[in-house]
């Protein structure tokens, strides 16, 4: 949408009212000072700070001592506000107006003044539900773009921290900010991210995931090739490692690139608690993920193809539990996994008040009743419960765990342990081919692909790890 202003204020007001005709939140305030200065103030109700408009915009204009002032003169000498400028570009003016700024048109000047009076309601920062920590900072990003940037700036007191804005040219006009550390982040990485963002072709961006799906490598892979976080401390750590962080207006999720598999097993607590405790926790997460994807398939493979590998007592106990159960082990496990995924999905969408009731009915009552009714066997319920619980240890890989769990189950049911090993080999081969913005996905996890860092499978103590950046150049290390 494009508008053309003239030197005639009445005409300009008509133009603006035509553009926003039918919008009841659009406010036009005509101001005339006793000295003859005539202006029009435009803003959207609910988007602005009324005090700032009253005290810093309208009051100075009403008391204007000179008639026929230019837009520059009004902006520089009359308005008592910290951020105002003449913006001849009417598209930029409209965009700012829609985002909570106030536009002033002066009689006799066709150029609008844009005043920063944003004052819409915002959620205050709180700890992200998905990234809670036992110890450490509890601040999380919000939907407010500038507040998110301020959280980063407050933590990195370094002029090399750079924010580069790109306004996405869809219907939402969403601002996307690429953040990086000059001299630490490889320029090619910044360029590549900016290039991919420019190539996004959507009619609107409402969340960081819109950007993520458009710019990530290997979009069909279940493994995340773009990091996400809702915590400013994590975003800063990634900036210091030489990565690029992308913030999207309206989303509390920050994206980071490149993303490697190693970081999926890391938790914020790893860096805020004792190193040995962190090492144990990280090892448990890795073991938990492997168990989560392998255990159902291994159970089916052993029962269907390799009963000789089970100790006699265990085989007898499982046989006793399966007596009278109409379904073979594969279908039992498949059915239970589907029920678990359904319960998980329902739990995510259910209000927390009902959540506990649903988990008791869905998990305990249903499971117990199914076993008592001989519809399912107790070992199958135990196996799926183990897979479900261990799968929650690595939330960033839940999507990958879901796909791998079902794929390996099918492989195990078809080919036993041979099928399971074949499925795992395919998964590892897929991981070997993955790259995130040119960085191998298995960086630091296999011997020949290692970066300059002591933070790999386990992390070293902070005292021994002053240089923990995995992409930063040698001369930029602290």
């Amino acid at each position, binding site marked *: 949408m494009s508008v053309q202003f003239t030197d005639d204020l009445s005409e300009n007001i008509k133009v603006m009212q035509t553009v926003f005709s039918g919008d009841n939140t659009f406010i036009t305030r005509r101001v005339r000072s006793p000295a003859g200065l005539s202006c029009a103030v435009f803003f959207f109700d609910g988007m602005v700070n009324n005090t700032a408009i009253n005290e810093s915009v309208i009051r100075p204009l009403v008391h204007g001592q000179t008639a026929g002032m230019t837009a520059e003169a009004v902006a520089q000498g009359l308005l008592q506000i910290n951020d105002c400028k003449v913006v001849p570009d009417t598209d930029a003016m409209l965009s700012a107006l829609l985002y909570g700024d106030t536009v002033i048109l002066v009689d006799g000047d066709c150029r609008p003044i844009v005043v920063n009076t944003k004052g819409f309601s915002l959620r205050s920062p709180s700890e992200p539900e998905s990234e809670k920590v036992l110890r450490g900072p509890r601040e999380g990003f919000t939907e407010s773009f500038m507040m998110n940037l301020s959280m980063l700036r407050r933590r990195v007191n370094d002029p090399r921290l750079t924010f580069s804005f790109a306004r996405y040219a869809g219907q939402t006009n969403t601002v996307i900010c690429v953040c990086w550390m000059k001299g630490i982040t490889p320029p090619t990485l910044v360029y590549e991210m900016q290039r991919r963002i420019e190539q996004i072709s959507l009619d609107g961006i409402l969340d960081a995931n819109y950007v993520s799906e458009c710019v990530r490598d290997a*979009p*069909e892979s*279940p493994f995340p090739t773009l990091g996400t976080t809702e915590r400013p401390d994590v975003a800063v750590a990634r900036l210091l490692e030489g990565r690029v962080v992308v913030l999207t207006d309206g989303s509390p999720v920050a994206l980071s690139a490149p993303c490697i598999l190693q970081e999926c097993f890391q938790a914020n607590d790893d860096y805020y608690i004792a190193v040995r405790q962190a090492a144990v926790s990280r090892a448990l997460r890795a073991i938990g993920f492997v168990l989560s994807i392998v255990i159902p398939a291994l159970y089916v493979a052993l*029962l*269907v193809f390799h*009963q*000789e590998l*089970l100790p*006699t*007592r265990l*085989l*007898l*106990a*499982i*046989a*006793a*539990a*399966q*007596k009278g*159960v109409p379904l*073979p*082990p*594969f*279908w039992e496990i*498949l059915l239970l996994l589907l029920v678990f995924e359904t319960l998980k999905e329902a739990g995510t969408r259910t209000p927390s008040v009902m959540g506990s009731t649903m988990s008791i009915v869905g998990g305990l009552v249903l499971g117990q009743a199914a076993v008592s009714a001989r519809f399912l066997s*107790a070992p199958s319920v135990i196996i799926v419960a183990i897979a479900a619980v261990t799968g929650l240890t690595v939330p960033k890989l839940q999507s990958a765990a879901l*796909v791998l769990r*079902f*794929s390996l*189950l*099918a*492989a195990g*049911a*078809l080919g036993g342990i041979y099928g399971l090993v074949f499925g795992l080999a395919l998964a590892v081969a897929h991981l070997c081919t993955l790259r995130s913005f040119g960085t191998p996905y298995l960086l630091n996890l296999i011997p020949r692909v290692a970066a300059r860092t002591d933070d790999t499978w386990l992390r070293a103590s902070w005292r021994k790890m002053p240089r923990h950046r995995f992409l930063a150049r040698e001369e930029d290390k602290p």
Partner: protein
Amino acid sequence: MKRMLILIVAVLLACVGGKGRGAGDRLPILSAGVSASSDGQLVLTAEAVRQDSLEGSAASLYLTTSGSDPAALFTGAEQLLAGQLYLSHARTFVIDEAVARQGIAPLIQTLLAQDDVRLTLRLAVARDVTADEIVRAQAVVEEIPGEALGALLDAHAVQGGLPDLPLCRVSDRILSGADFSLPALTLTEDGRVIPAGQADFRLGRMTGFSGGEGLA
């Protein structure tokens, strides 16, 4: 992703037609023995074990078949079970003295031909009693006699009291024509199984017992 999902669904559907066997579909054999009957036939006694509920204990049941040669014994047992004789969990195979004296090579060959027999299966010779009696003897502590029998042979093999010759080594000795000895087992007056020296073999045939006199 779409292709991957289609692949997963296709493989899952393929599993529908696959073997849906569960743990309860097979009857594991814990121990077995071959005896010679009075009419010259061979008799196979196999101890199978089953557990009907998680709260209950495992119970042994005995299958008996007869045949003219070892292969016929296994075929008969499988016909009796209407399925495969599942020997994967078998730990002990007891041979009657009379059978051992006739030569155990055909029996060893038949055992090796079974795809689920472990090469660590322990062989023993029944002394002064039949193999059937040894297999059916009740255990003192263990609830499954076959397990108790296997544990007894393992323990004595480790301590050096009995020859440590599992199926694979016996086969090797027979093929190479070497002499070897197998553990001998007998019953006490109260029906417990105890070691009774060893049975000596030459060219696959038992020549006699040595050691363990007076134990029973």
